[in-house]
């Protein structure tokens, strides 16, 4: 029973991502889409209008061929723990930072679709439903009943597979465990990662992999100076890879690309 002597022990779920292991296969991206009922791309979608709650970027060291080297960086909602930008700006409180889990949850049924949170997020971790979701005939039978599909006009993002956390809570309750203890579960992306680059755990538990990784000198977080306290810890032994966490430096290999041409928009 929850009481003053037996208070709820809050979890602070986080993740560690080993960039020296990630091979850019994209298993995390599709596993996430399967788990969370994210629809396949609409005919007009491109990489700027898609729905990829976790997205693997190919980042290079800025050198010209043949000294060019690449690394694959999975980027998902960083679950900012302090001054969470999106929580702060949503006009109808459709986003909240759950103090019991540390998960930044998005409520699609409350979302107005104003996209202010998308402007606020520096990690581009939020995605808007520009189209209504559509699955090929029959494929809607494969949808996950634990997650509600979203219609067009609302924002969505990674929520650390909150449905799985709920299921884990229910299993723990059914097993008679006290509901003051945090539960252990694995989100779809970490479960699917074949190289073990993605590891999920409770940062409040010193034995968990993310908590240990956080203390590793090779660990870093994206844009740390912004002060958002993200809970995704990236790791790499390579110096140039650790540099990607800081602000952009134009001229250092960044490409100026134009918007998709009308042709590209038409063909997708």
């Amino acid at each position, binding site marked *: 029973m929850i009481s003053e002597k037996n208070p709820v022990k809050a979890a602070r779920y986080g993740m560690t991502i080993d960039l020296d292991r990630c091979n850019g296969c994209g298993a995390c991206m599709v596993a996430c889409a399967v788990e969370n009922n994210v629809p396949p791309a609409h005919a007009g979608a491109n990489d700027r209008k898609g729905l990829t709650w976790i997205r693997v970027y190919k980042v290079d060291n800025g050198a010209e061929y043949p000294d060019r080297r690449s690394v694959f960086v999975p980027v998902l909602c960083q679950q900012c723990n302090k001054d969470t930008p999106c929580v*702060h700006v949503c006009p109808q*409180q459709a986003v909240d930072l759950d103090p019991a889990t540390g998960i930044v949850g998005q409520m699609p049924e409350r979302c107005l679709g104003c996209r202010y949170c998308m402007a606020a997020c520096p990690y*581009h971790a939020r995605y808007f439903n520009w189209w209504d979701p559509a699955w090929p005939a029959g494929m809607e039978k494969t949808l996950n009943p634990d997650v509600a599909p979203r219609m067009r006009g609302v924002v969505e993002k990674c929520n650390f597979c909150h449905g799985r956390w709920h299921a884990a809570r229910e299993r723990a309750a059914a097993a008679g465990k006290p509901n003051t203890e945090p539960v252990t579960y694995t989100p779809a992306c970490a479960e699917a990662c074949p190289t073990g680059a993605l590891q999920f755990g409770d940062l409040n538990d010193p034995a968990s992999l993310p908590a240990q990784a956080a203390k590793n000198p090779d660990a870093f977080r994206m844009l740390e100076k912004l002060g958002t306290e993200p809970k995704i810890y990236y790791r790499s032994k390579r110096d140039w890879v650790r540099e990607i966490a800081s602000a952009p430096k134009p001229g250092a290999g960044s490409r100026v690309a134009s918007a998709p041409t009308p042709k590209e928009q038409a063909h997708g």
Partner: protein
Amino acid sequence: MDREFIARGVKRCSTPKFLLWTLPWIGLLAFGLYAAALCLIKGLNQTNMDNRFAFGLWIFLDLTVIALGAGAFFTGFLLYILKLDELRAVINSAVVIGLVCYSGAMGVLAVDVGQPLRFWFTFWYPNVHSMLTEVTFCITCYLTVLVVEYLPIVLRNRKLRQVPQFLVFEFELHKLIFVLAGVGTFLSFFHQGSLGGLYGVLRGRPFAFREGLAVWPTTFFLFILSAAAVGPSFILLTTWLAEKISRKRLVKPRVLELLGRISGLLLAVYVIAKSVDTLVWINRTSPETGFQAWQYYSWQPFGTWILLAEIVLFGLAPALILLTARLRARRGWLVSAAAMACLGVALNRFVMTVQTLAVPTLSFDRFLSYTPSWQESGTFLAVVAYGVLVYSFSFRYLQLFPEERELRFEAEQTEELPVMAGEIDPAGRY
């Protein structure tokens, strides 16, 4: 045939000619409404906005027209609270401009959000920390105030005031005008500021992020200042435009010069404040987030020219022109400076909305550009057409310019040609 609706003592063009004038605007409005309907029915995939450019043409234009429509509240404040009586000549026009700007902006916002039917959620589940909640509340209230301020103008129509209840109602309402002006000023102060606050609080966008006073970033105050500065300029511009199109004298030149002087003064204060703010941002605020300010301007085409254009070319220059009495007296300089001031504010809003989203935040972001789709442009053009139509009807049937009758009478008396733009009246009466 609609002579009875047109006020006594002023001349308006014939009805067929007026209908001819409205026709292209109605056409544009219809086209724009079709574009907007497409966006509502098919969804926002009809636009070229995407996950990186979550805000596009519409938000930029919303912010610009709201800044330009600030003339409504500010003129009211100057007239009813600070008792600058010359401005009585333009207050009605200002109210119509304000109404048009705000209602147009609200219309576009209704199309811009993904779920317009959920608009009431902001009122039901407000987030006290969000600037957008504040904007929504204040703009909704202010739109109501503007409608209430517009009502008396309508009720004073020659035909409508024949209804005694309207006359009485209008009279009683006018007694409350100070209250309305005060409330309007208060609300405008907050929503103009909050529109600036929208960007200033974005901790995740160091390009826009500013420190400030308590919960209000400096952009809050800068937006209020710039809106107050450009409001009179826009009134000046629209009045001049109305005079040119209708080929009548509507206000005494000294009214326009007064508007120009107020605008220039506030613009100068704004330029100083903006320059200080920019220096603090370049040297402290931005570097503390790990983003060096110079790198924002390395992403072509957003070079440092845009910063200089905003502050110097379209900020300091028009301010200095408007503060110089001799230049103010020349219609050409006055109107040009007012137009430049308006452009400067538009540029500022553009920088805050579009450039903020264009510049990368992650080191592996690409710099992307965005061009609005025809549906987006069409929707905006609908607002322009709507504005022109409302203003045209108001100009024709309502008394927007109290001094018009007097000026026409004087012109007929002296049988002079009306003073054309650019000439200085040799008799120095104005």
